[in-house]
Every structure is written in structure tokens, then in C-alpha cells.
């Protein structure tokens, strides 16, 4: 089994391997293998489409944290002509689980902030598996306030299992750091465009997720609690994560249907990790479109619109 593929992706992995093998075997030889490869590629496409046609919520949750999924810095690199990363919260530390800085996208200046995960053991630890501590959220806020001072729109990329539940994080006010961001983001006088690119893990995600528009990539998730966490509390067993994923309604199409997000960005066949370039192109196009729309609105109207948007979240009735 190929560890870079999820279990339900194994047929894809096998076809991938076959194609690679055929190419390697024919290297330098005169045989024409194009036809054979073409056939396999067609088969691969059909197989992938089959697998992805009816994904369960739990499978989507696994795709959202796929080890090969593009992360914030991958998208930044793909969509920006320039990017200067800025570090630190000016008070305690720089948290590598959140990255941010000044970027240029299609000629215009923006501030980009996102959760960042690592790829290998070393970078995973450095990035704390994408779980920010308070200084990460405070760095994010500092950069957002910088954006406001210079009238730059803010793009956020959400991809975290959640805020880090550690001793130091508690001591330094994890709750306050998240709460403060929610409050401040509701009143920042520049457009804020939030996109969930992978895992939208609870308060740790929302802390850079309050704005004028919420996008989700097709196979990303956004949830009040992880399926595992929910299962261990309500089902008393983490094995029930599959059921919890279903019950929580954490997939992009479902959340769009519930009116909790604004747009679902279709992913390439097989998911963003199968064609990151293509995904980045789509993401860029959507963000630029949304920027155009939001930049037409003056600051007062923008804040009014934002409040109304937040205000409508809820499902309840009056007896």
C-alpha cells in the first residue's frame, strides 16, 4: 500500500504506478507506448471519477487532511507574483503554524494569512501540525491591522485541525487570542476573503475566518469539532468518527446548502493534490473576481454588510 495515497485511493495509486513503470521500461527504446499509456490514462480517469463520484463525509474529511494536499504556502507561491513573509506577534514569538505577509496578486497588493502544515516530520513539528498558539493568532491580527492601515484587502487560507491545546497556549491566553480576532475582524475596514483549503477545525479555524465571503474547496471540511473528537464525546468511541463526520455535516456542498458558506470551489479530478496548479489557477480567478466585487463597496457599507452576514447565522424558531 502506498502511504501517499488514502486507502480508497489505492486503485488510483496502482494505475499511477503502472503508467510510471511502462514509461520507465520503454525509456530509450523505440517502441511506441503512447497508445498503451493513453489507454491506461483513460482508465485512470474513469476509475478516479468512479471513486470520487460518491465520497462519504469521512472520506472527504480524509481528503481534507491528505498528506499531499497543497498547503497555504503552495497556493501563495502559485498565485502571487511577489510575496514577503512577515514574522512575529511583536510580543512573544513567531508561530510557524500561521504564515502571513504582503503579496502581489495580478498586480495588486494584498495581505495573505493562512495556517501552515509541514510535509515531513521535521517541518510538521516546526509547524506544530498546523495548530496555532496564541502568538499565531496575534501575529495574524497584527498583519490584518497592518492591512487596514494601508487599505489592503485580506485573503485568509484556513487549514488547521484546531488551535493547539497545550499548557503554554492556555497560559498565554488561547481563548482571548481567538476571541479578540473574532471581534476585531468583524470591524476591519478592508475586504476579508476567507477560503477553507483543507481542514477547518473549529475555533482555531474561525479565528482567521471572519469576513465578507467564505469559500471552501470542494474536498475541504469546516466543523465545530473534529469527527474523532465528536465521536469520542458523543459515541464514547473514536472509532465512530465515520458516523460523526456524517452527522456533523462538515462538507462544502452541505454547508453551502445550509447557507453557512458562500461558494464551493470545484477541485480537479481526484482532488487538489492531483493537480495543484490547476487548483491554484481556479482559486486565483475566484478570489480576483470576489475582490473586484468587494472593493466596489465603501468601508461603512462593507461593515454593515459584514455584520448582517454574521447576524443571519443560526437555525432556530420562536415558539
Amino acid at each position, binding site marked *: 500500500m502506498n502511504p501517499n495515497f488514502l486507502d480508497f485511493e489505492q486503485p488510483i495509486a496502482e494505475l499511477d504506478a503502472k503508467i510510471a513503470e511502462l514509461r520507465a521500461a520503454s525509456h530509450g527504446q523505440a517502441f511506441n507506448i503512447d497508445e498503451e499509456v493513453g489507454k491506461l490514462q483513460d482508465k485512470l480517469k474513469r476509475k478516479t471519477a468512479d471513486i470520487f463520484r460518491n465520497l462519504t463525509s469521512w472520506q472527504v474529511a480524509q481528503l481534507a487532511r491528505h498528506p499531499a494536499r497543497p498547503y497555504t504556502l503552495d497556493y501563495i507561491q502559485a498565485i502571487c507574483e511577489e510575496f514577503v513573509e512577515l514574522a512575529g506577534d511583536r510580543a512573544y514569538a513567531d508561530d510557524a503554524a500561521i504564515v502571513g505577509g504582503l503579496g502581489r496578486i495580478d498586480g495588486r497588493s494584498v495581505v495573505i494569512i493562512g495556517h501552515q502544515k509541514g510535509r515531513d516530520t521535521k517541518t510538521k513539528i516546526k509547524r506544530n501540525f498546523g495548530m496555532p498558539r496564541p502568538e499565531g493568532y496575534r501575529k495574524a491580527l497584527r498583519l490584518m491591522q497592518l492591512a487596514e492601515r494601508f487599505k489592503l484587502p485580506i485573503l485568509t487560507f484556513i487549514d488547521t485541525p484546531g488551535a493547539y*491545546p*497545550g499548557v503554554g497556549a492556555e497560559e498565554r491566553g488561547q481563548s482571548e487570542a481567538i476571541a479578540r480576532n473574532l*471581534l476585531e475582524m*468583524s470591524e476591519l475596514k478592508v475586504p476579508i476573503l476567507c477560503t477553507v483549503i483543507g481542514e477547518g477545525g473549529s475555533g482555531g479555524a*474561525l479565528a482567521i475566518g471572519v469576513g465578507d465571503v467564505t469559500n471552501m474547496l470542494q474536498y475541504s471540511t469546516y466543523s465545530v469539532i473534529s469527527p474523532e473528537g465528536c465521536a469520542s464525546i458523543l459515541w464514547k468511541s473514536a472509532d*465512530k468518527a465515520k458516523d460523526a463526520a456524517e452527522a456533523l*455535516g462538515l462538507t462544502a456542498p452541505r*454547508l453551502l446548502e445550509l447557507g453557512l458558506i458562500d461558494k464551493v470551489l470545484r477541485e480537479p479530478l481526484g482532488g487538489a493534490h492531483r493537480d495543484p496548479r490547476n487548483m491554484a489557477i481556479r482559486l486565483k480567478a475566484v478570489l480576483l473576481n470576489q475582490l473586484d466585487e468587494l472593493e466596489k463597496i465603501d468601508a461603512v457599507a462593507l461593515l454593515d454588510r459584514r455584520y448582517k452576514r454574521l447576524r443571519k447565522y*443560526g437555525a432556530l424558531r420562536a415558539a
Partner: protein
Amino acid sequence: MRVRRAMPRKSNSEGVPKPQQPVESHVSDSASSGPAPTEPALPERIVTAMPDAELFDDENDMSWLTKLMPSRIRTEGKGDPSGKGKVPEGLWEKCEGCGAVLYGPELERNLQVCPKCGHHHPIAARKRLTALFDEGPTEELFALLEPVDALKFKDSKTYKARIAIAQKNTGEKDALIAMQGKLKAQPLIAVAFEFAYMGGSMGSVVGEKFTLAAERALEQRAPFVCFSATGGARMQEGLFSLMQMAKTSAAIARLRRAGVPFISVLTDPTTGGVSASLGMLGDINIGEPKALIGFAGPRVIEQTVRETLPEGFQRSEFLVEHGAIDLIVDRRDMRDRLAALTALLMRQPRVA
């Protein structure tokens, strides 16, 4: 835990009697006239019960207590499922702080604070608010809001069933009560979380009621006070719950901009999504003594860092030390201190 089970049923000591059944001086009457509820203890209650119950699980305490307690009361706690026990429920309470045996009605008069050691026991939201406001007319706000099961959520029970049980057990429609009245003759709007209702969790109704109350406070320029007692966001409402964090925080931002005071009183326990939104956003943050306040619960942290947490970690005193809250206020002084603080903020004359 063992000690507590040997005691009169805990569910009545937490100050959440059915509203139409005042515990006050009628305890013996009501208990002898009607059978005790046959409803099994609330699962939510047990799961979220004081996380530090084991602190009081002390064998010495136990033997001391058994000696002291009249046997007829002791047997009652063993659970008489037929409900035919003759012993009034909740007449005697054991203090969770010092182990002293306290007379229920007296404890209640003392706002569930142990008169011997000052330990703060849980208090029902409605009682807390009633105790806060001046005597005289208070108006309950937005009382008609009710939860809906938008996700058709089902684990071992359906969310609908959980709502029904919580409503039956607490007599409340959801986990937040909002009221408007006077505090020392000045207008005040206050909300309180009912922990006995699904762990005081914040779903759409809680978020909406809080926001409406904040908007009312803004409109009337009346100080706004929130007493939180909650495990955080309500899982059964999925992302709707999470979004209440953003909604309530945005409402507080508006109060802030208008210079209308918001005082957040954090009581035991306040964790998760509520702590990470409205809880920590007071112009003044107050903790009740020894209240557990934090983002992650102690068990989650212990599992993550794989070490035992130090004594007093995430308690109010710890939060003052680490700069997260302004001060600690004893529940019995809450009225006076809140009146003094709001008067100072509103530039009103000193309150008597």
C-alpha cells in the same frame, strides 16, 4: 464521586429545581408528597460534571461523613428507583470544598456558596439573575426562542430527544436566560448560561439570544452582563454553533465602539467556544473563585501533552496571575461589585 453518591441526589443540590417547585421552605412537603423523579440522571450532567470530582474522592472524608450523616439520609443516596424514599431530597448537602454538611435551604439562601469555606457550587441561571437584579419588576427577554434540529443530528440519542430531556429537566427552552431590570436602581441587561441544559452549550438559540440582548443593551445604552457556565459550542448544531462565536463577538464589537459596558463573569466551568469568544471579550472580565476557565478542557490538554497538570491550572486565580481576567469576585458580593463597576464606567455617582 463515591462520596457524592452516598449523598442526597446531586441533581437537586445544583440549584436547578423545576421552577414551579420552589425548594425554599417547602422541601420536606414537596418531597414527601410527590415521588422523586424516576428519570435516570442526566447523562450530559454526568459527563460534564465537575471535572475535578476526584479531588473530593477521599476515603477519610468518606468515613468522617458516614459517621456524621444520619443513616436515613445516607440510604437515600443509594438510589431508590421506586421513588418511595421518605427522605426529602436536597435537604442536606455536602460542601464540595470543605466537606461540611450544609442545610440545603441555608446553602440556597447563600447563593450556593458554602458559608464555612466559601466554595462556590453551581447555581441555576434563573436564580442567579433573580439574585442579581433589584427586587421589583424584571422582564425576561426573548424567552420564546427555541432550538431546531437543522442537521437531523443523531448519535446514541437524537438531538431532538436531548433537547426534550434538557427542557424537561431544567424547565428552560435553551441554555441561556436573558433578563432586563434594575441593578441598584440603574438599568441593566444580563444573560446567564444554564449549565444543566446540555452543559450550557452554545447553539443557535444561545448565540441569537446573546446577540439580541447585546443589541438591546446598545439601543438602551444599558450595561450588559453575561454569566457564563458552559463546556463550549454545541456539537449537535455543527457549524451553526461555531458561527455563533463570530456573531456574538461582532455584537460585542458594536457595544465596544459605542462605549456601552460589557462585563463578562466567568463561572465554573467556562471553556471551549464560549471562552474563546464572548467569554474573554468583556471590558471587564471577572472570575468566580476557583472557576475552571480555559480554551481546552484539562483532559484534552493532558492527553495532548501527556503530563499531569499542576494544581490550580486554569482556575480563576491562575487566570488573574496570567493576566487573562481582571479580578475575582465572590458570588455574594457580585451585586455590589457589578453595580460599583458599571457606575464607574458610566460616570454615574457612587452607589450606596
